[in-house]
């Protein structure tokens, strides 16, 4: 087994009296696709926020490729290769789709004095257009991000997150706010595009069909703890997961596994 790319040890987070993460021990192998499930308030986003540096853990350590990154600022962690998308798409609404990606590409390629060079350079534009093709948003090249549909905005958000060629990508509810019919096509585009980069992908998801279809492994959160860590076929039948996470409405088909 290869050494873990991300190793989380005894992670703990309190918000005053509320415990949002408690004794989390988990590690991830390179190239894994992991679904993070749990009811609202179970600590999923807190977990993602701690890994990406948005929140400092109360205790514990996060090791990325054997290097401790606990408490580093988001931009430093992003530069090391852990990027994320957001539950509510975080794009630059007053810039066009092209300019959104150009900004991301420019920062990824030349964060130092290169920042003084013009943004609209042919080589940057070529790269941005390549990414647009891959994420199927090329049709909106010159549209303002504020004019995009939810789905296209999600795609742009995710595309911007992978521009810096991360090794780990965390997607916070990539299908939230998307209609049921659109969810699967959107995830197909995302997962196809991501597969080309051989990333470790962690994504938070409420839709169990999506989870079952796309992930190798499921982490179920309940009250700040991981109550189940198993392949989807097993995890989605786990009695604790059924009781605390899924509830009664989802019944996995017998024998259905990872697609």
């Amino acid at each position, binding site marked *: 087994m290869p050494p873990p790319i991300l190793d989380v040890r005894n992670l703990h987070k309190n918000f005053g009296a509320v415990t949002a993460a408690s004794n989390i021990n988990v590690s991830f192998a390179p190239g894994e696709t992991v679904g993070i499930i749990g009811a609202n308030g179970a600590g999923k986003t807190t977990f993602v926020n701690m890994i*990406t540096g948005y929140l400092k853990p109360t205790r514990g350590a996060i090791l990325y490729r054997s290097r401790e990154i606990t408490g580093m*600022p*988001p*931009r430093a962690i*992003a*530069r090391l290769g852990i*990027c*994320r998308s*957001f539950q509510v798409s*975080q*794009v*630059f*609404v*007053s*810039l066009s789709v092209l*300019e*959104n990606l*150009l*900004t*991301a590409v*420019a*920062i*990824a390629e*030349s*964060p130092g004095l*290169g*920042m*003084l*060079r*013009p*943004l*609209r350079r042919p080589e940057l534009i070529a790269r941005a257009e390549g990414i647009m093709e891959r994420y199927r948003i090329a049709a909106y090249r010159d549209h303002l991000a504020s004019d995009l549909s939810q789905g296209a905005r999600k795609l742009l958000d995710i595309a*911007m*997150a992978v*521009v*810096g060629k991360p090794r780990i990508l965390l997607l916070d509810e990539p299908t939230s706010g998307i209609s049921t019919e659109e969810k699967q096509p959107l995830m197909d585009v995302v997962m196809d595009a991501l597969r080309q980069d051989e990333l470790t992908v962690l994504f938070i998801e409420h839709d169990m069909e999506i989870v079952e279809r796309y992930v190798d492994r499921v982490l179920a959160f309940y009250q700040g703890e991981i109550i189940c860590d198993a392949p989807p076929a097993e995890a989605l039948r786990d009695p604790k997961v059924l009781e605390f996470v899924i509830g009664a409405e989802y019944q996995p088909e017998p024998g259905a596994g990872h697609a």
Partner: protein
Amino acid sequence: MSLARDRTVQGLTLALGVMLIVAALVPSWIVNQLLFGFSRAIAVLGLMVLWRTRLVSFGHALYFGLGAYTVALIERYAQVSDAFVLLAAAALLSTVVGFLIGFIVRRYRDIFFAMLNLAFSMILYGILVKTEALGSTDGFTIEAPTYAGIAFEDASQGKLALLCLLLVVGWACAVGVQAYLRSTLGRLTTAIGDNEIRVEYLGYSAEKAIHIKYVLSTFLAGLGGGFMALALGQVDPDSMVNWTASGELVFVTILSGPGSVAAPFIGSFVFEILRTYAFEWMPHAWQMIVGGTLLVIIFFVPGGLWALVARVAERLFGARAGAGPAAAGTGR
């Protein structure tokens, strides 16, 4: 696209040539208006750069005044009277102070950013007013400077020389800011106005980008203040450092509009003319006219005078006259 082929830069260069000729032909009272207007325009250019990130400073008279007082104090106490030296010192000092204060203000946004700047400017105002050696409430008068050693006997020739220098420096500042706005860093600061979190997660420090922008604005404000001191031939705390002077800069920024680096020059000149005529017409209520004008601009041309100019140019030439991202900072 290189900077030399940028339409705005070409337009500015053409305008520089025209203005150098115009300056030699117009009567001296217009020379004065141009001096005051364009001195302030350089400072306003800095505020426009901040506005592109949706930051407004109510305290940039701190740097404007710092530049002006640097000129006055060096001339008085160091007996140096060359315009080049005085202006360089003015820009340098305000940039250094801006760099240091930048470490604090870069952490704040919105009204806190605006008011923190105001607070710093009030400190300088307080120091100036209370200190006899710094001219107290009266300020100082400034002798006409030399220009690289050349002294002009005739006062109006001296003014003309200052205007030529101001035009060239103003042109250089506008071109420099245009280059900055086109750069990744410059475009990024528009992005920061939209979404700082995303900028951080892309791997860049939003605070650092704002700090750089802030220092640029303080350099421009100090330089503008230095020119204003030489143009007026005097400095005083009330018209240069007090919060009303900061307000004036913000006023002109909104009047000009954020659409182009040329906008501050048009807006500032119009402001000078407007104020002069309003004062002559209604010496005790001129603010009413000036305020009313701003209301009209905000209601009917939120893109400022520049949007008006762009609209006219579009009608005349049928092309988009470098309107650029005019909507970027209009607030809606």
